Structure formats: structure tokens, C-alpha cells
């Protein structure tokens, strides 16, 4: 008698359609904060990944140009802890648009003026994203740390004074943040510090790293299977159009840098093949339609 056929629930693969967005883990996992929802548990003592030098970034920019990359993103940790950060931005803005994801704490007026000058000198856009997790210190500070609400808002105000209009980036740790009313409250907060064209990005939380401790890890059913994608295409996932460069090689995306399995190679050219969507965080990207892009 034949064995009954058991439907194999195999792991799907995502192809790289086009490498449009290139990320740099420019400050490694080192941060001046230790937020309780950080999906890669960044902190002042986390050296899982170290920062990148100007030379590291320039080498990758050359390869990226050959592959036709469209935009560059810088994250950490806190990017402005990297002493080369402004030189890195200057080099990047010669070849394409750049975005920096920052906690806003190191945005003093002098730095903001220098960033404003860099933005003006380039044909391409320089964008800054400042993270905040609530409309008030009471909502934000338990997540991001004592006093961070006031200090991040001061950073936003300094950027505005230098003619830069940052995107406020908010995670859904507080559910109301993503509602229309919630968005309006953040717009009002930005207006209160001198930003008349408020911009906002809301991101879901990934239940990994520090966030897994805070709100619980993924459960076994939260995993992608072949057949979950509409018309069999995974082109809506950001990993179909991005890669992440760290001091230890090239990873598939900005989320999985604390998983060695997320690493695809040493140079961009090693990483142009498909990637298996094995990690439960891939489930979040699919279900919530996440893109880390602005």
C-alpha cells in the first residue's frame, strides 16, 4: 500500500528583482540608547556589528553604481556615533539620494547646519528619519529612555531651523499611532517645533531582539509557506529590492542582521541570488506589508 502523500509545506524563496535600495549598518549595533523594542537589541555595549569606515562605504558605492542602485539608507545603532558619518554622506550624495535613520540625540545646531549644507550642495535628496515612540515623555520615555522625548524633539527642531524636514518615524508599540487620529497628533507635534510640512512613517514592531523580551517572541505558526503569496510573487517584500551591508558582509535585509543565516555574501555581487523566507520576521514583512524605506 502506498504511503499517504503528505503536503510538504516548503519554505518559499524570494528573488532579487532589482537592487534599488542599499542599506548600511553604518554604526554597527552600537547605540547611545537601549530601547526596549529594538529588534536588534542595540546598546552602548553591543558590538555584534561594528561601524563602517568611509573607505568601506566608498568601496561598496562603486559596486552599487555598477549594479544601478537607486537609493542609500544608513542605520545602526545610532549613525551619528560614527565619526565618519558626515564624510560618508558627502560621498554618497555624489552618487545618489541618502536617508539616515537616527534617534535625534546627536543633532546639535552645528551638525544640523552642516547637514543642511550637504543637502543643498547635492543634486540628490538627503533625508533624515528621527525615531519617537509616543506623543509625550510618558508614552515615549519608558520605551526609549529617560529624557529622550525632549532631546529627540530638540533634534527635530534643530533640523527644522537648518532647513531640513525630517520624517518622524514611529513604531506601533502604541497601537493608536497608526490610526488617522494618531497620525494627526504626530503632525501637530511636528508643527509645534516649527515644521510646517510634517512627514511621518509608521512601522510595525518585529518580535525579535529586545522586543521579544518586551512583548513576546514569534509563535511557530508565524512562518511563511509556499502559496502564501498572491500569484506566487514575493516582489512586494523589500528583500526583493534591497541588501544590507555591515562590517561583516552583506545581509539580505536590515531586519535579520543578528542572524548569521541572514548573511548572503561578502560583496554585493555575491548576493544577487534568491533568499529563503525562513525567519518568522519575514512573516511580519509579508502580513504587514513592511518596508523599512521611507
Amino acid at each position: 500500500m502506498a504511503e499517504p502523500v503528505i503536503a510538504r509545506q516548503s519554505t518559499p524563496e524570494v528573488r532579487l528583482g532589482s537592487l534599488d535600495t542599499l542599506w548600511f549598518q553604518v554604526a554597527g549595533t552600537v547605540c547611545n540608547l537601549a530601547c526596549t523594542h529594538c529588534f536588534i537589541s542595540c546598546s552602548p555595549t553591543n558590538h555584534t556589528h561594528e561601524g563602517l569606515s568611509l573607505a568601506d562605504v566608498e568601496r561598496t558605492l562603486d559596486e552599487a553604481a555598477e549594479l544601478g542602485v537607486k537609493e542609500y539608507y544608513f542605520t545602526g545603532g545610532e549613525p551619528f556615533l560614527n565619526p565618519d558619518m558626515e564624510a560618508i554622506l558627502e560621498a554618497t550624495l555624489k552618487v545618489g539620494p541618502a536617508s539616515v535613520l537616527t534617534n535625534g540625540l546627536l543633532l546639535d545646531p552645528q551638525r544640523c547646519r552642516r547637514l543642511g549644507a550637504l543637502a543643498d550642495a547635492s543634486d540628490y535628496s538627503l533625508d533624515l528619519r528621527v525615531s519617537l515612540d509616543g506623543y509625550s515623555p510618558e508614552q515615549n520615555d519608558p520605551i526609549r529612555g529617560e529624557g529622550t522625548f525632549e532631546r529627540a524633539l530638540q533634534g527635530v527642531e534643530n533640523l527644522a531651523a537648518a532647513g531640513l524636514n525630517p520624517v518622524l518615524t514611529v513604531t506601533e508599540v502604541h497601537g493608536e499611532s497608526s490610526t488617522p487620529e494618531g497620525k494627526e497628533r504626530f503632525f501637530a507635534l511636528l508643527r509645534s517645533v516649527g515644521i510646517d510640512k510634517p512627514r511621518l512613517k509608521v512601522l510595525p514592531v518585529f518580535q525579535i531582539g529586545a522586543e521579544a523580551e518586551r512583548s513576546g517572541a514569534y509563535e511557530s505558526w508565524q512562518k511563511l509557506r509556499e502559496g502564501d503569496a498572491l500569484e506566487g510573487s514575493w516582489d512586494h517584500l523589500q528583500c526583493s529590492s534591497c541588501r544590507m551591508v555591515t562590517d561583516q558582509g552583506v545581509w539580505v535585509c536590515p531586519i535579520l542582521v543578528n542572524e548569521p543565516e541572514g548573511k548572503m555574501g561578502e560583496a554585493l555581487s555575491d548576493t544577487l541570488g534568491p533568499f529563503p523566507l525562513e525567519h518568522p520576521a519575514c512573516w511580519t514583512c509579508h502580513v504587514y506589508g513592511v518596508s523599512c524605506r521611507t
Partner: protein
Amino acid sequence: MSHRPPKDANEQERLAQQRQAREKLTAHRGMATWGERLVPLGDFHRAAAQAGRTLSGDERRQAREKYLAGAETEMVAPAAGVEGPWSRIAVFGGVYNNHFALESLLEDAHRRGAEAVYCLGDLGGFGPHPEKVRPLLEQGGVRVLQGNYEESLASGREDCNCGYTDPRDNHFATLSYRYTERHCSADFKRWMGRLPRRRRVRVGDRELLLAHGSPRRINEFLFASTAPVPFLEVLVRQSRCDGLLCTHTGLHWHRRLPSGANVVNVGVIGRPANDGATHVWYAMLEAVANGSSGSTRSGELAVELVPLRYDHQALAREMRQEELPEELVETIETGWWTTCLEVLPPKERAASRF
């Protein structure tokens, strides 16, 4: 039996929180975070060093070629024959139901001696009376491409597929779309569904690829400040052409690449270019004989972005008669966008009033 007063409990909780926060700041000394585990730094670094694949120099070159060629086939495959050669063409996009501007465009292009007129799509949205656009296109012999608006209307989508997340942008985009959707006949929608998504056109000896957003995606935004030269060079090579023409963003620009290829966003004739002026924009392309430029290739391409005046007051009147939102009428009368601003990159947004 003692019970602590609430003040002490709060105080203790606060101290515990502070202690926890301090511990977090130093938790990773000598340790790495591997997923949810803390492991000795060396363990993570060794595992990372072994992960992924490392190709040789030759293999990397092959991988790059294979990757670039893969994207290429998709963009080149559906193209039909090459139209032309023309010596002079007019190209416009984004009519947005603005039949007044369309009429002016046809006159202007004719006066300037355009042998062919191309429309890169987005016929509807924003303005009044969508059905007035089609006869003008047909009488003018305009060669039309499908935009995301036509794709959405023909396929019965519920929105224009611009991808707004700002509630205000979404409100006006939806309102515009529903108006156009209601006022388009089923026959017009079927006609939209049959429009091609790309055309290849020869001007002089230059072969141009025409698309709505980009050659690869109907709703890709190509703004001047976020479409860098190396990206465009690859896109042109993959499209196997000497130049790309697109629209979709509403803002016109022209970049001549180091390779000699031209990339032109022809702008839109449906609403002003968010610069405080009421006129709109289109592009004239002309083959010019090789002369003083010293170029090694014959038949240079001259690209002119043309400001176009039209009766914008008549349009504003008609929009009000149709009870379209005053915010949209304001854009026509002032030249400043009041909606759909969220998609603008920082540079373009900085130049915007709102």
C-alpha cells in the same frame, strides 16, 4: 501587618526601572546578540564569517551580468516595433481630465511642427469631465500609452494605485478617482485597457523608450532628486535604447547622462508643476544634424521642456460647477499643489509651498 503607602510602591518601581535600564546599557559587554540569544562575541563572528557565499572575481562578474540581463529581458520583451523615424515629436503626460490644456497642447505642438504626438498616460483624475479627453486625443492623432490611472480604471481597482498613506492625501486621491471612475463609460475603460504600456520611437537615429512611470514599473516615481545617474545608466542599458521618456511624478526634468543618453520626465499638462505658476509643461524632441557639437555620433537629440499656457480660469470654473474640492481648484489657480504631497522627496518638497 504593614501595607506600603502607594508613593513608596511607585518609588520602588521607578528605582527598579532605572536599575533595569542601566543593566540594558551594559548587558552586551563581550557578548553578541544572535537572534534572541546572548552568545560570546567570537561565536557570532565565526558563524557570520562562514555564512553566505563568497564568489571569485570571475564569478562575481558573471553574477552581475546575469543579474542585469535578467531585469533586461522583462523590460525589452513586450515592446512591439519601432515607430518613426521622426525628426520632431511632442510628448506629454498626466492629462488629469484637463481638456482645456489638451486642446492648447495640440495647437502648440502643431504650430511647432511636431510630426507625431505622444501621450504617456494618466488621462483621468483631478479635473472635470473625463469623457471630453478621448475625442481630442483621437482627433489629434495622439499615440497614447497606458498610465496607472488607465490600468486601475480598466481593471476595476478601487484606487489610483499611487500608494498614499497620509490620510489627507488618500482622501483627495480617492475622491478624484471615484469622480473619474463614475464619469467614464465602460467603452472608454475598455479602450484604456487596450493601451500599450511601452512604445519604442525613433527620433533621427536615436531610439527612445516611452513609458508611464518607468520602463520597469507603471507606478514607479522618477523624481530628479531620487533618480541618480548610475541608476539611470543601468536602466537605459537594460532598456536597450538611447533615451527614456516618462511622466507620473507631475514634475518635469531632463538629465543628459555621461553615456550620451537622455532621460526626460516630460511633466504633466493636467496641473501646474508646483512652482507657483499656472502654466503646465510638456517636451519637444528634435533630431539635429551633427554640426558644431563635435560629437562622434551623428544626429544629436535636442530636448526642450516647453511651458504651456491654457485657459486655467475656464478649468477652475468647470471644476467648481462639478463641485470638485476647492483644494484642487486652488492648485489650478495658484500653481501650488495642495494634495498628494507625501510622495515628494525632500528636495522637491522643500521647493513646495505646502
